């Protein structure tokens, strides 16, 4: 990776849509639009400044028209919930190549209140041919299958304890976030007593299904320095995917973040110990456990020790998913952009009750598909 590309672009604006959680009165595109409006306001930029447009889940043809933007650079890369973190690297590349100067990344989904079918899988695809007939359908089942393998390799009891630690610690962070959907206290008993969705997953291993949107504005360094808020520099950004179907996953205990993370760290010239805040996609508790290992925060099979005894909860040694995550804050379907929103706010010191005391460097790791894709970004403030 080219280290000279570090700090060439910055995140200059972030926002959620006006309301995240349950919004039966709003479409997905409204969430895109509100988030775009709010993020540009946060950046101190006008929609006329935007010349690069990025989104996932639908084509930028749709979002561009809805927002009234005619982009000179357009990127609808859609590789699951990691996509919006991946877009940061794509924006960095496009800006450095001179294709655009101000990149707007938008997201909007109404996983909870959708009036449509939401599409569904194309019946001609391999997944419909070889997995769906067996009821291997949807994220909880796919990820549960992967988790069973981890338990087999590294021990069921210590894995179970780790999943509980992550669920409980994440809820504690959510209790400090006024926008989080789930703010009631969660005990270890609550976790263990919650109903089975797909063994080994309890209900409280699984992310929420919400309505939400968010947007991120990325700008060239010289533009970023002139804007009202402190630039959040992109030090490293990388992506990777190594399968689509769960049954094709090379190693059920290793996240593609192992590859993406290594290259992102290399580009940033940093190592896991340098990270003050890790925002790690928590579609499921297990996603966090394996991602921590694959990103190099600990070794293979060491995740349970790493998260032991609420080490990642407020006041703990390792700041993780301070927004309350997909598990307790919000998860509309593809959550990756919200990792970036929280990382930027923590770096800027805007997080109120849950603000970390010393947050200079943050990592956002998006995950997508059936543990298929990773987008890793390393961000820092001066």
């Amino acid at each position: 990776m080219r280290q000279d590309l570090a700090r060439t672009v910055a995140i200059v604006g972030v926002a959620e849509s006006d309301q995240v959680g349950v919004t039966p009165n709003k479409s997905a595109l409204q969430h895109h639009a509100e988030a775009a409006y709010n993020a540009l306001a946060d950046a101190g930029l006008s929609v006329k400044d935007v010349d690069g447009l990025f989104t996932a889940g639908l084509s930028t043809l749709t979002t561009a028209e809805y927002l009234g933007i005619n982009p000179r650079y357009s990127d609808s890369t859609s590789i699951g919930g990691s996509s919006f973190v991946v877009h940061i690297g794509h924006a960095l590349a496009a800006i450095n190549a001179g294709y655009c100067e101000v990149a707007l990344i938008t997201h909007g989904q109404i996983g909870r209140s959708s009036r449509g079918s939401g599409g569904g899988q194309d019946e001609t695809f391999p997944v419909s041919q070889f997995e769906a007939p067996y009821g291997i359908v949807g994220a909880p089942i796919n990820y549960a299958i992967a988790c069973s393998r981890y338990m087999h390799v590294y021990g069921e009891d210590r894995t179970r304890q780790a999943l509980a630690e992550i669920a409980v610690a994440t809820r504690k962070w959510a209790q400090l976030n006024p926008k989080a959907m789930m703010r009631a206290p969660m005990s270890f008993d609550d976790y263990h007593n919650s109903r089975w969705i797909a063994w080994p997953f309890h209900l409280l291993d699984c992310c929420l299904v919400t309505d939400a949107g968010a947007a991120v504005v990325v700008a060239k360094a010289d533009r970023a320095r002139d804007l009202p808020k402190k630039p959040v520099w992109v030090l490293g950004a990388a992506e990777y995917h190594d399968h689509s179907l769960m049954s094709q996953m090379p190693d059920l205990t290793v996240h593609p973040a192992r590859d993406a993370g290594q290259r992102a760290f290399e580009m940033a010239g940093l190592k896991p110990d340098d990270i003050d805040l890790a925002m790690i996609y928590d579609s499921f508790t297990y996603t966090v456990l394996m991602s921590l290992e694959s990103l190099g925060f600990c070794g293979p099979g060491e995740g349970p020790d790493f998260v032991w005894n609420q080490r990642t909860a407020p006041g703990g040694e390792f700041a993780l998913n301070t927004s309350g995550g997909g598990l307790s804050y919000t998860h509309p379907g593809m959550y990756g952009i919200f990792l970036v929103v929280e990382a930027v706010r923590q770096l800027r010191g805007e997080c109120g009750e849950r603000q970390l005391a010393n947050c200079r460097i943050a990592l956002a790791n998006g995950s997508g598909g059936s543990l298929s894709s990773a987008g890793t970004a390393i961000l820092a403030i001066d």
Partner: protein
Amino acid sequence: MTTATPRRPLPTPQPEWDFYWERTKAHELWLMRCKECHRAYFYPRPLCPYCFSRNTEWFQSSGRGRLYAFAIVHRAPHPAFADVVPYIAALVELEDGVRIPTNLVGVEPDPARVKIGMPVQVLFEDANEKISLPKFRPV
């Protein structure tokens, strides 16, 4: 073995998978392997996913393998599966060297009874007049 047949979404065979589903209809499991790098792979496709060779061939699997990973599904992912939960969604590693998504049947869907590494054998569940699904049971 074929109690609790779900009203599930069945495959609509696509051209490169016609042969696979024709053979399963005859209660045979056929896979593909590469004649260049000699690795078997799943799902069938005309290019080897390991070495990109087009020099590939079908072969009949022994249907024997071991349970590689599984989930016990309690919440149906689709209404068609509501009357068959709990069921076992599984990956089986065949002795031919490939992993195949399937259901494990003939065993209680109880984590105390389902063990990763347990030997399994293919069986075929006739879903309708066109499609038979390869599933696995403990041996």
